[in-house]
């Protein structure tokens, strides 16, 4: 269906090729998962399938990419629209029309499909993706998950033979992600659609994939193979696979169900081990940093927060969770003083962030948005650091020093745009952390971040908390919550529905429980690291008993 034969691609002005001698064949009706570290060329590989690379990006492509027998050398993306549908990382950016129905029909209109056939296919797609209720809605009023489904439906309607998706669940809450992925599997099984998707959050997609294409980056050879086989040795792997490696399970289980069957001995062993240490809640003497009192906020007619009260203390890492549109981002923007409350009040160390001039604000609250690049304007990394020092009145070199602490050895002469996702996040964090704000807010920090990047972030967060700062994360990433958070707050419809130590909150939720917790329930372990130290601890105990 899709063949890459000896494809080498380099962007204009790039020193090394992004793709080097790629040979890859994807069969019809296959669900193929593309994984790899950030910046390894996953998106490039995906966009080459329908010729957006190089037709829209420039650069040099040698070798041949063909889909359904048509080579992207001879056919432009528009002439492949009936063969392949591509959904990018940001679905909203791909919308051409304004309502759901028109968006679904757009490709078909271009292909000249007869009106009654068009009508039938739109109705089918509405049913297939559960969009029926939304058919007349304006696209900009939809939530992230709904937009993602519309974007998929819009390319699906033209009944292409292949579907290419770049991080389709990165913006979605766990439940919405599940929904999108199960619609995709249904397409593969019922219609024989070929699906190629790239994803960082492997724990979400691994159970659905038949084959994995590992893009190691740096122009190295792709590793292609059945999911279980590739995962056994892959440098990027979801927690369930890490757990399997620790416990020595073969073949590697890919679903929670399979893992649970294998996990009985491990559970028995862990039952005897001392329970994981309760997360340090900042200690009894810790002072409250931020407070929300009966906070209400709205966007236009939409009530985003409803009488919300919350107190956050120094040394805490608070994860704010909840489905798309539950008020997480609004809470963050209130704490950061970007918007004024409509009722109630927010205080950070006794000051209202919304009333502070920008200069003072950044010494009190630091926020890193989802797209960290938005904070960066400099021409180079070094330039960004010196400007930050100057503007915030810090001693020259202090931002640079913070950056070195966050991510050592970052090239100082790069343009922020040319950095990898993880490097950009590090730079934005350095800029925000340099004025030493006691309250640090992060909006969905792991979007587009690979596992090593995530690990570094977790270490940094623990360090910040140890320094007595207080960190608030708004995130859908349950694995991040499991690794980093000391406290979890779940929002629904602008209200707090649960609030407590992260372990208690996530363990008891079917939606937010991380994979390890699901496999080991009812034992309260959340991460592979905890399990490893528990096992080591218990063997130590036994040897102690023996002597």
């Amino acid at each position, binding site marked *: 269906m899709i063949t890459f034969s000896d494809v080498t691609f380099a962007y204009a002005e790039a020193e090394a090729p992004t793709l080097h001698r790629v040979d890859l064949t994807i069969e019809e009706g296959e669900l193929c998962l593309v994984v790899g570290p950030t910046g390894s060329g996953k998106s490039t590989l995906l966009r080459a399938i329908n010729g957006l690379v190089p037709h829209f990006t420039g650069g040099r492509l040698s070798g041949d990419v063909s889909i359904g027998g048509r080579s992207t050398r001879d056919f432009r993306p*528009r002439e492949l629209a009936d063969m392949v549908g591509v959904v990018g990382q940001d679905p909203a*950016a791909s919308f051409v029309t304004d309502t759901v129905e028109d968006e679904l029909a*757009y490709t078909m209109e271009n292909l000249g499909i007869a009106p009654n056939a068009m009508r039938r296919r739109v109705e089918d797609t509405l049913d297939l993706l559960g969009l029926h209720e939304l058919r007349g809605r304006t696209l900009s009023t*939809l939530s992230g998950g709904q937009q993602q489904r519309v974007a998929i439906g819009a390319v699906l309607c*033209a009944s292409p033979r292949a579907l290419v998706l770049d991080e389709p669940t990165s913006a979605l809450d766990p439940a919405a992600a599940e929904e999108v992925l199960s619609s995709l599997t249904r397409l593969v099984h019922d219609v024989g659609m070929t699906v190629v998707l790239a994803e960082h959050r492997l724990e979400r997609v691994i159970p659905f994939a038949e084959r994995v294409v590992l893009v190691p980056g740096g122009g190295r050879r792709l590793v292609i193979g059945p999911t279980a086989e590739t995962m056994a040795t892959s440098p990027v792997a979801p927690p369930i696979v890490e757990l399997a490696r620790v416990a020595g399970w073969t073949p590697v289980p890919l679903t929670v169900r399979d893992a649970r069957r294998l996990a009985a001995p491990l559970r028995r062993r862990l039952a005897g081990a001392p329970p994981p240490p309760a997360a340090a809640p900042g200690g009894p003497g810790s002072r409250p940093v931020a407070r929300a009192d009966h906070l209400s906020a709205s966007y236009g007619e939409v009530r985003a927060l409803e009488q919300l009260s919350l107190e956050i203390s120094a040394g805490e890492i608070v994860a704010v969770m909840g489905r798309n549109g539950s008020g997480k981002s609004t809470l963050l923007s209130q704490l950061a003083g970007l918007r004024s409350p409509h009722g109630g009040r927010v205080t950070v160390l006794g000051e209202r962030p919304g009333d502070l001039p920008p200069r003072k604000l950044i010494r009190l609250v630091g926020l890193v948005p989802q797209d960290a690049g*938005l*904070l960066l304007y400099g021409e180079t990394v070094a330039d960004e650091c010196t400007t930050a020092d100057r503007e915030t009145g810090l001693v020259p070199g202090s931002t640079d020093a913070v950056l070195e602490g966050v991510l050592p050895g970052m090239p100082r002469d790069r343009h922020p745009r040319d950095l990898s996702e993880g490097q950009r996040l590090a730079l934005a964090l350095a800029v925000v952390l340099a004025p030493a704000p006691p309250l640090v807010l992060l909006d969905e920090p792991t979007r587009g971040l690979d596992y090593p990047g995530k690990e570094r972030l977790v270490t940094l967060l623990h360090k910040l908390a140890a320094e007595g700062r207080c960190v608030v994360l708004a995130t859908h990433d349950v694995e991040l919550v499991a690794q980093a958070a000391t406290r979890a707050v779940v929002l629904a419809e602008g209200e707090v529905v649960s609030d407590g130590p992260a372990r208690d909150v996530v363990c008891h939720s079917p939606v937010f429980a991380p994979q390890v917790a699901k496999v080991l329930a009812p034992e309260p372990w959340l991460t592979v690291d905890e399990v490893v130290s528990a096992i080591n601890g218990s063997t130590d105990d036994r040897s102690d008993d023996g002597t």
Partner: protein
Amino acid sequence: MSGRRGAAAVRRGLHPAAWWLWAGSMACAAIRTTNPLLLALIAAVAAFVVSARRTSAPWSRSLSFFFRLGVAVIAVRVVLQIVFGNRLPGHVLFTLPHVPLPLWAEGVSVGGPVTLEEVLQAAVAGLRLAVVLVCFGAANSLASPYRLLRCLPAVLYEAGVAVTVSLAFAPEVVMAIARVRDSRRLRGRPIRGIAGLRGMAIPVLEIALDRSLQLASSMDARGYGRRVVVTRRTRRIGNGSTAAGLLLVIVGVYGILDVGSLPAGGIPFVALGAVLVGVGMAVAGRRTDRTRYRPDVWALREWVVAGSGLAMLATFIAASVSGTAGLQLQVYPPHLPLLPPLPTAGILVALLPAAVAPRPRGENSSRQAVPTRARAHAAEPAEGILT
């Protein structure tokens, strides 16, 4: 209203062209009068119909913007008249110091006695323009610009796409401004004043242009611009007929705006031109392979809405042709405006759409059936830096 949802037309709302015809007729009528009472009435009718029939879409909130713009237009017009205007005789309100200008600037005067009459005239002229703007805003609020584009004949599609990208550009800029403002605040940078403006312009344009490029690549990936086969002869006939028709329409519209310059107010010209344009487009569009999904239907309701606007315009034309008093405000000497019966009745006819036009579907499901809280969960509009 929800009981009428069965009819096909209700599903997709009124044909956008009907709204534009209705609003366009009102704007044309507004141009023909200087009576502030009539003008205010037209604006009120436009506002009422919009409030009764707009959707929940983002552009539906644009009317208030047009009202504010209108007020600004009046203010600017009056201030300009007071400072630079030609001095007309009449009741002197106050006198500004006269600034002597060099000879080459003859005809322009600065300062001098300001009369009630000239201020009044300027205010009414400003009001007239403001009401035209409000009519335009009403059309914008009632019919999505995208949907109007969908009605364009296939031959004009290429041009339509340029418009689509530029239409998308404006909201992108607005969103980019919100994001850049937020990010500057988070970096402790000024967001107001010259410094703020200078620092923001580049990133805003960068973001908005980036999005436009994304839109273009997305359109391409979705098959936009696949080859269209049109023979040279068909294209010639089509283009010629369209061009001639457009010319006639322009001449006709001139006749409608400039009373008495053409027989029968220029309406026959417009009609003939419209037919020619229609033929031209049909001929040229025959060979394109683009199809249209659920084209908007033109049914009774559309006739009524467009007709109510045209009827109102007709009453204005009739009144001015027959020389009915009250259409123009009498400034010399200033008189209180009257309400001439025929045009007033015409304006009231233009209220019909508020009852006849179907309630937009989005409205049925979102504003009435679903409580506000549930909607909050359904969608949190992406605003600013936190999306």
